[in-house]
């Protein structure tokens, strides 16, 4: 115990001075006590009072917090005359401690009002021993304070005074109270009893001073006739004035919520609360001193953990308190309890939910006790999901969920999954349902392999899969562990919708998504659901370019189904893939290569493939691939007769022996058959092939002669045949080594039909004056001369050749002469005109 003492008064012969002091008290503190203990009586009281009158002079009990953790309580009383007989003397007794809490135990400074500890007369010794204890006065009790504030409108004033006191602690704006001396002490008692001890001990006060300007106490009791000016400016701005004698009060615009709490407790005469709350408060503030002024929030926290149901608004304050002052780390056990209470609240609005998010954010930081974090997660789940989401608007919920997406609440999975699913089931609003579901997945509140989830997907999500929002959710889920669950659910859903064209159309965009399709395919195969597999293929293939790849993939996958025959499915798939437009030649090659012969030969689409093959085959010089395809397809059981013949031709051409007349004749017969009558191109090609062999192979001179005769006599109007011959002729003379012979031979074979007038110039059968003439004159002169020489070596032919040449050459000269004649006539006419 180190309560040091100090006496100050006007002593015999020495005047005002420190008359006695504890030796341990330092000079600076003594100087402070001398100044702070000054007592000047109110002007209105008798200036030369009697002993009786002096008893009514105000007592100045002051309390100050000094530097170095020192506290001083000063008791100054007026004692009238000094030794010289002059009035103005006073006696000031001060107590100083540097450890208030220990030395004063639970006493508040104001409790020393009327304390027997105070002396008002000089002792005999100038040395004052430190006190071992101080004794509270008997007056300042809870009952006295309760009785005091219960009368008139004092509770309201107390709320103002408490508000002002709290403000004063922060801003040092001082409070001036004018009332009777005892009432001032009671006001100070009410304020300091109403605040937690820690704060109460920071409130310096004096129950009386004549000059409030000269002291620094936060609460100054004074009298109406004091030095205080009570100017409007002071009342309005500079001080909190509570002049109960003249009804002058500073305006308190907003009563501090904790002040209201205190007043209520005062009204209820609940002194126990103040002790309990003070203990709680002191514990918190000892480790989180910055929160000392957040009284109401601390009260709310105290109430909550005491089992009192507090409002949402109060919870918001509590959350702000927890976050602002790092209470999670400082008081984990307290937080566990508080968070449990928070989880139990019946309703939650948007603001509280946002705060709960902030709270969890804080709990998720490194270093926070895992149990606190778990409780914070649980509180967040309870508030945001269970309490807020059912009543929130979709847009509000979207905002909340956006903020929560970053959290991983996997730790709550086991206990919360069922609640999540039940909630989803109960929420009707699609947007909300989906937002929540998305959140549950993101926050890992649902197990990806949960059977409940599968059921929920089947019953809650898939029925609305046609909604764009659901589809978005679906796609989002594909990027998570929930991919398989979603795909399977979608697969199950589609299995039941195979014939529902409308639904299939609505989800076709999803099926067309490679990621979804592949997984769905796997699901269908896994489930041996051929119908689903086919349906998926049918939709998917429509949107893709690599049809052959898909078709062959289909063929490959179809093997996985336990089917007796693939043919029907294959044909359906072919139909789905190409519809009415046949595959390209390249695709056909791949189809024929990719599909097993046994299957291909049984498929009807082989006939279509045959058509593709021959339509893409050059019969005169068929490519080896065409020949190979034709050969393969010829084995098909489903080929039409027509296609079978054509394919047969393709496969036969390479085998033709041009030396053998029989083969050539066979070719001609085929080309001129009725079968080809409708197929002009094919017929022409085959005929040209035939005529090439005929013209080019020397051995077939006679045969050539026969078929020229057939052409001229039997087929004189068969343009296709004549064109085929001319094309074959042009092809044949392109070989320089035999071109002269061919020119000579052809002239000889054809010329006689002109001599006999069987062919006339300009007829369909006119060969010499069309193809032959053009080819001849397109040869070099030297070649032409050799040809002429060869032809003219036979004198009989020579005349006809000269005639041919004359006809063809003269024709040219005549044209020139005609043109010259026309020019001459023109010149003549012009000359005549001039004349």
């Amino acid at each position, binding site marked *: 115990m180190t309560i040091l003492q100090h006496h*100050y008064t*006007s002593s*015999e*012969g*020495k*005047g*005002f*001075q420190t008359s006695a002091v504890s030796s341990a008290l330092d000079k600076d503190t003594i*100087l*402070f006590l*001398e*100044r702070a*203990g*000054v007592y*000047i009586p109110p*002007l209105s009281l008798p*200036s*030369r009072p009697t002993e009786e009158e002096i008893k009514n002079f105000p007592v100045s009990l002051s309390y*100050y*917090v*000094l*530097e170095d953790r020192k506290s001083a309580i000063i008791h100054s009383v007026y004692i009238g*005359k*000094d*030794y*010289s*007989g*002059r*009035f*103005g*003397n006073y006696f000031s007794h001060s107590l100083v401690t540097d450890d208030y809490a220990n030395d004063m135990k639970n006493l508040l400074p104001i409790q020393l009002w009327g304390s027997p500890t105070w002396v008002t007369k000089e002792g005999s010794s100038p040395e004052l021993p430190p006190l071992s204890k101080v004794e509270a006065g008997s007056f300042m009790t809870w009952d006295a304070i309760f009785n005091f504030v219960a009368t008139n409108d004092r509770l309201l004033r107390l709320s103002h005074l408490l508000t002002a006191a709290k403000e004063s602690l922060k*801003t*040092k*704006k001082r409070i001036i109270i004018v009332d009777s001396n005892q009432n001032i002490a009671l006001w100070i008692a009410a304020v300091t009893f109403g605040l937690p001890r820690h704060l109460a001990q920071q409130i310096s006060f004096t129950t009386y001073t004549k000059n409030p300007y*000269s*002291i*620094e106490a936060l609460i100054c009791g004074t009298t109406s006739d004091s*030095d205080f*000016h009570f100017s409007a*400016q002071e009342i*309005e*701005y*500079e001080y909190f004035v509570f002049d109960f004698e003249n009804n002058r009060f500073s305006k308190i615009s907003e009563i501090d919520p904790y002040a209201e709490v205190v007043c209520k407790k005062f009204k209820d005469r609940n002194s126990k609360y103040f002790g309990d709350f003070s203990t709680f408060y002191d514990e918190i503030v000892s480790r989180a001193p910055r929160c000392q002024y957040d009284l109401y929030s601390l009260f709310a926290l105290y109430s909550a953990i005491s089992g009192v149901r507090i409002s949402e608004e109060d919870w918001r304050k509590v959350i702000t308190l927890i976050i602002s002052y790092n209470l999670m780390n400082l008081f984990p056990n307290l937080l566990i309890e508080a968070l449990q209470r928070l989880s139990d609240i019946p309703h939650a609005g948007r603001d509280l939910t946002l705060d709960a998010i902030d709270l969890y954010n804080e709990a998720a930081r490194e270093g926070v006790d895992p149990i606190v974090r778990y409780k914070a997660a649980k509180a967040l789940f309870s508030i945001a999901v269970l309490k807020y989401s059912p009543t929130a608007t979709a847009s509000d919920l979207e905002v909340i969920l956006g903020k929560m997406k970053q959290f991983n609440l996997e730790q709550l999975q086991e206990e919360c999954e069922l609640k999540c699913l039940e909630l989803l089931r109960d929420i009707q609003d699609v947007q909300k349902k989906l937002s929540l579901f998305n959140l549950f997945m993101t926050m890992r509140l649902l197990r990806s392999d949960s059977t409940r989830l599968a059921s929920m997907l089947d019953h809650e999500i898939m029925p609305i899969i046609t909604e764009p929002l659901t589809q978005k959710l679906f796609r989002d889920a594909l990027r998570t562990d929930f991919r398989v669950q979603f795909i399977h659910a979608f697969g199950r859903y589609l299995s039941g919708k195979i014939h529902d064209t409308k639904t299939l159309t609505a989800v076709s965009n999803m099926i067309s998504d490679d990621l979804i399709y592949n997984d769905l395919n796997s699901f269908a195969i896994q489930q041996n659901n051929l119908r689903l597999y086919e349906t998926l293929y049918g939709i998917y293939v429509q949107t893709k370019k690599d049809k052959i790849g898909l078709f062959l993939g289909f063929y490959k996958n179809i093997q996985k189904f336990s089917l007796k025959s693939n043919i029907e499915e294959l044909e359906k798939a072919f139909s789905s893939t190409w519809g009415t437009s046949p595959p390209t030649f390249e695709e056909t090659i791949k189809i024929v290569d990719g599909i097993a012969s046994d299957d291909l030969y049984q498929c009807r689409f082989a006939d279509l493939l045959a058509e593709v093959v021959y339509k893409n085959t050059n019969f005169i010089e068929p490519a080896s691939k065409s020949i190979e395809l034709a050969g393969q397809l010829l084995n098909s059981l489903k080929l039409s007769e027509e296609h079978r013949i054509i394919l047969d031709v393709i496969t036969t051409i390479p085998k033709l022996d041009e030396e053998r007349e029989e083969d050539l004749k066979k070719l001609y017969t085929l080309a001129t058959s009725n079968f080809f009558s409708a197929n002009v191109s094919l017929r022409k090609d085959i005929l040209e092939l035939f005529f090439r062999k005929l013209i080019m192979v020397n051995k077939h001179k006679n045969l050539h002669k026969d078929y020229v005769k057939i052409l001229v006599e039997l087929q004189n109007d068969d343009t296709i045949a004549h064109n085929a011959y001319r094309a074959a002729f042009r092809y044949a003379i392109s070989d320089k080594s035999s071109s002269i012979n061919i020119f000579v031979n052809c002239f000889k074979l054809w010329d006689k039909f002109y001599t006999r007038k069987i062919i006339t110039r300009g007829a369909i059968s006119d060969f010499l004056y069309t193809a032959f003439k053009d080819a001849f004159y397109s040869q070099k002169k030297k070649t032409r001369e050799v040809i002429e020489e060869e032809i003219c070596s036979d004198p009989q032919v020579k005349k006809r050749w000269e005639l041919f040449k004359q006809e063809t050459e003269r024709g040219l000269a005549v044209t020139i002469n005609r043109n010259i004649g026309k020019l001459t006539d023109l010149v003549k006419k012009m000359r005549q005109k001039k004349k």
Partner: protein
Amino acid sequence: MANFICPYCFEKCDTRDICFRCINPNPSDCPLEEDEAFSKYWGFASTRQMPRIIKPNVPFYKNRLSHAICPKCKTKTTKMICPHCHNPLPHTTGLVEEYMIALVGAKAAGKSHYVAVLINALRQDIGQKLNASLVALNDETIKRYRDEFYKPLYEKKEIIKKTISPELKHPLMYRFSMGRESKFGRQKHTAVTLVFFDTAGENFDSLDIMRREIKYISNSRGIIFILDPLQIPAVRDRLPDDTILPAVHTQPEEIVTRVINLIREDHQIPETELINIPVALAFSKIDALCSLLHPDSMLNRASPHGAQFDINDYELLNSEMQAYLQEWTGPELNNIMKHNFQHFAYFGFSALGAPPASDGGLTEAVSSFRIGDPFLWLLWKNKLIKGRKNKA
């Protein structure tokens, strides 16, 4: 450049350094700031929140500004404060000369009564004779003079309460304006700021306390040293038995010695030089000594000083008081004065005119005599009033 001495902290300041305090009453418009210098001056344990301090830029061609604009709230303020201690300065600072008058004396010597009656006299008959007016320069002066000095004496008819030593007091500050007629018959006004310091006698009990509490002495333009003749043993012995005698206090020589030491210390004046602050040594409570005075004592005559200071009267009174001093106390005090001050003179006065009753009440109305003599001598020494000497 003009200098002045702050009447609170007594720092010598340049008028260009004068600061201003914002007068915007609303802290939400112009937030308060912690004022350490002010709080330190008044001895507050914690720093007080005060309106903002403005340090204006003074144009090079001006000695001081009469107002400033708060940079925060744009309020115009004329409230000047000391750049060091931030206490309010009179608005005359830097415009007229300041004369600080220090009152020195032991406990119960009569310092407060002297100030109380002198100020009243300056406002009444002395003022009239000097054609002068005395106007308080601030509210503190008005209130303090009214409550602590005037009311007890003139209204309640009782002696003034003890001056409480630890209480920091605002000095009493007045503008003392005197009208004089020039050689050409024109009215000419001279104004000075008078600052009176009254302090508790306890403050003169040790040099340490004086250094801390009454630093103004070194900076004063004149000292009125109140001597209580009832403290002099030779006087006490000769007075009638029914005279109420005060308790014996500090001897005047001790206080004078401390004052001398303080001034020499502050101004670093060597022992070989005399201090040039005029000191008026004034015996108070002369009314109690009637039985000891010669019938033709100057103290029995009314003060003759009018618009001009009567040098003849002063010289005669000074000689007489010096003789009494020699008779009652011996040469010690006079020797001390002679060896330390260039100008000093002895006076006698009675503030109340009659001793008070034992209960502190006045037996008669205040009827002071020769209360103005020491003060007028200081004015004359400071050349604020002219002296008049009759060639007899």
